[in-house]
């Protein structure tokens, strides 16, 4: 774990005094980067109480990186908000805390303690209820507690069909609900930021990035990510066609299940009982990207919550989940 600390400290030093790049950024990444920075500055300038929703994953890593660049040499003009379901991989939490400390970030963590105390978990409660209570409800509670009027999220349009139509500035009513019929047309880079008291806007600065762009940017701009993205020997069990890591003793093993050490990595990070690993030998970024280029399974299929039913993401969005 001292590895993580050293990595994020070195990373933080880059923002103390900027150094000129050795190799120019690829043309299309440069354009994507500029677009995202533009969006973030609009939000910082026009909203009273913005926040960045930070999920510790690679998309969040890129989003945070862009924000550090957007406001350089100033510090981030807004806090980060993490929703901790208490079932995240342990390494994610270690990473989160090390990063916040190294960069001097204001990291707010929200836990739905009541649901945790009641023993809500993915295997007894089912993935839907688990997500609803520990993620959606907790996020809603944080939004209400801090009265955020704008919240950055790391969603991309290439992730899923219903997201392809999502605006960059996505309007939410007083209950954080999303009404697909009531979204504002978005022209040029001229974003309408006007809202009434109690309403809020979700802002997606990575809308036009693809998964490959994210990896390429991490590679070209040397952005640290949670080591779980790299292949290593980890204890896993096979369950319903998914490879699940036994991250702690809470995961109840079914009859016949025996954790085995396998070389695996994760393409997406969330609650460990709900996140499938893939078998891989990719231990460097270069190898991950090469694997990506020949990948035949899309990113979200590693996420159990999306399999429930078609159009499920849209339903979740209406309820206030991203």
């Amino acid at each position, binding site marked *: 774990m001292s590895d993580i600390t050293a990595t994020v400290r070195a990373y933080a030093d*880059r*923002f103390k005094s*900027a*150094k*000129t*790049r050795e*190799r120019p950024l*690829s*043309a*299309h*990444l*440069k*354009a994507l980067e*500029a677009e995202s920075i*533009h969006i973030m*500055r*609009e939000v*910082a*300038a026009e909203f009273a109480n913005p926040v960045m929703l930070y999920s510790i994953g690679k998309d969040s890593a890129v989003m945070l990186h862009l924000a550090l660049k*957007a406001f*350089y*040499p*100033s*510090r981030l003009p807004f806090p980060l908000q993490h929703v901790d379901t208490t079932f995240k991989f342990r390494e994610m939490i270690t990473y989160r805390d090390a990063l916040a400390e190294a960069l001097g970030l204001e990291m707010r963590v929200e836990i739905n303690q009541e649901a945790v105390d009641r023993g809500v978990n993915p295997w007894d409660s089912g993935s839907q209820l688990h997500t609803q209570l520990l993620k959606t409800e907790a996020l809603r509670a944080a939004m209400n507690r801090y009265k955020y009027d704008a919240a950055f999220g790391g969603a991309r*349009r*290439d992730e899923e*069909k*219903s997201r*392809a*139509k999502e605006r960059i500035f996505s309007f939410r009513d007083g209950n954080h609900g999303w009404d*697909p019929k009531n979204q*504002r*047309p*978005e*022209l*040029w*880079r*001229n974003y*309408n930021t*006007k809202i*009434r008291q109690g309403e809020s806007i979700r802002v997606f600065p990575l809308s*036009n990035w693809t998964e*490959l762009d994210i990896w*390429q940017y991490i*590679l*070209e701009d040397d952005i640290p990510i949670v080591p779980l993205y790299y292949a290593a020997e980890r204890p896993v069990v096979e369950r319903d066609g998914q490879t699940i890591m036994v991250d702690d003793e809470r995961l109840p093993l079914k009859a016949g299940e025996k954790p085995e050490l396998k070389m695996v990595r994760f393409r997406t990070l969330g609650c460990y009982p709900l996140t499938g690993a893939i078998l891989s*030998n990719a231990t*460097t970024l*270069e*190898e991950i*990207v090469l694997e990506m*280029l020949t*990948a*035949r*399974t*899309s990113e979200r*299929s590693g996420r159990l919550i999306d399999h429930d039913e*078609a*159009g499920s993401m*849209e339903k979740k969005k209406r309820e206030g989940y991203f």
Partner: protein
Amino acid sequence: MTVQTSRADVIARLTQSGQRGVLRFLTCGSVDDGKSTLIGRLLFDSKLLFEDQINVLEKDSRKHGTAGDEIDFALLLDGLEAEREQGITIDVAYRFFATEKRKFVVADTPGHEQYTRNMATGASTADVAVMMIDARKGVLVQTLRHTYIARMMGIRHIVLAVNKMDLVDHARGRFHEIVADYLKSADDLGFETITPIPMSARYGDNVTHRSESMSWHQGPTLLEHLEALDIDSDVQNEPFRMPVQWVNRPNLNFRGYSGTVVSGTVQPGDAIAVAQSGLTATVARIVTADGDLDKAVAGEAVTLVLDREIDISRGDVIAAAEARPEVTDQFAAEVLWMSGDDLLPGRSYLLKIGTATTPATVSSLKYRVDINTYEKKPSRKLEMNGIGQCNLSTARPIAFDPYHKIRDMGAFILIDRFTNQTVGAGMIEFGLRRASNIHHHAMDVSKSDRAQIKGQKPAILWFTGLSGAGKSTVANIVERKLAAAGHHTYSLDGDNVRHGLNRDLGFTDEDRVENIRRIGEVGKLFVDAGLLVTCSFISPFRSERRMVRELVEGDEFVEVFIDTPLEVCMQRDPKGLYKKAQAGEIKNFTGFDSPYEAPENPEIRVDTSQISAEEAADQVIAKLREMGRLG
């Protein structure tokens, strides 16, 4: 055995397709022309689909598909459940794919007639428009409409995709007939390129691979064309502009201005000017988190540090000192209306251009464009999806360049001040007067001189409320008491205005707005003359009352809400109007079958069902005294 892969190798492989940057295009056409299939094809053939997506696609094809047992590529695109069930796309969706030569972003916009606004939204960020035509149907009214919107939004390249060629036996003659027909109307609209391609999207013919059945087609396939098209824009060669987004002030030793360069280039040592204030300075540094730059070009997000401290804030435009943008508060623009509530000249909206936001009104609508025939037609309002030529005036001067020269300096949106919806989009064509001339001719006798002589501070006392609430009665007593105390007054009400100044106006929504606008302007002149002006008008719309409020200075507008309940007003019915409304003899009667938007924060509120008109008048005068208006 492991293969050594260097970072440079991987990056080289990745960047192959990114080197030419990104081409953004949109597809337009009528329902069922094959847009979604075309895009699905491009995604499928560029191997961008993953196995699990293909499995879902096959499953969905069986359930919802319209292509029999074959894969229905269109299903890849329909995102939202409801529309999937209706079988139409109703919004703008963005898709991404890449070939070895280039990266692409596709805006998928619907062909449904009423969705002009979606297409304009997609077109606002696109380099190329692909016009889909069903070879059996040929050029339709919609084709012309979409072509007009593409031109209006400044798209320079058109692909005429004549689709479903398999259904017309791949006939060369039919293709040429359609192309000739299209060029008749599109040729002189000023597009840089128009490239016709015969294709069958369903089978991929001339989309990603050459068609054997159409070997007569000598030109490129769609993908070849999009890969090769040169879209370099001239905006790099225009003068430097950067609207300031955010003032970057980490500590007392650093002050920078963050923004995106929208045109031209900037280097340390360049002389710049702040467009609105005219203040000048020299660029000292161009700061980024990747080190200082020697030069920044259009599209880059940077932070400028200047050689001296001058007053700059968000909304200002930093520009090349030797070639500055125009600054004006009146200009002509093409406006596309996107709201169900009509655009009404005279009504106040918020206008956002670049990083500046200011109240604005459409001062006149010169004409509406019929985009099916390209004819200009006189009109007094714009409906949803209407396009019109307008003059606008803003509360504060704005810096701009014409839209066709520098897109980001001439593009604006209009925002409804009550709902906050984006209701219009506009492209500035030219300024109507320079802001430097608008400082009115300085008069020898000023407003404050006139007020001082009269020993009062002038104001508009705006009485609003339902018919029969008691507005005129109370206003009349207020004026009588003020006059008796030696104050100089005037009163405006329906009677002295409707018969003269506003004789030409009726009671439609547009006319009501114009009625109030004129009254506001007259009230403002009387305020300038030093008078206390009472105005009694139902004035049901918040936005019009706010418009009048903004015409005069801060505390010169006093809103008096005569808040008498509707039942009491109906019972009083002094002019018998409610009875007529109930009998259906009068339409659009406020409070009855037309809404009254009550003031949210009036300076004064009285309810004449609780107190007498005399008492109400006394309350108004007491409040005026408290506000210091009575000297």
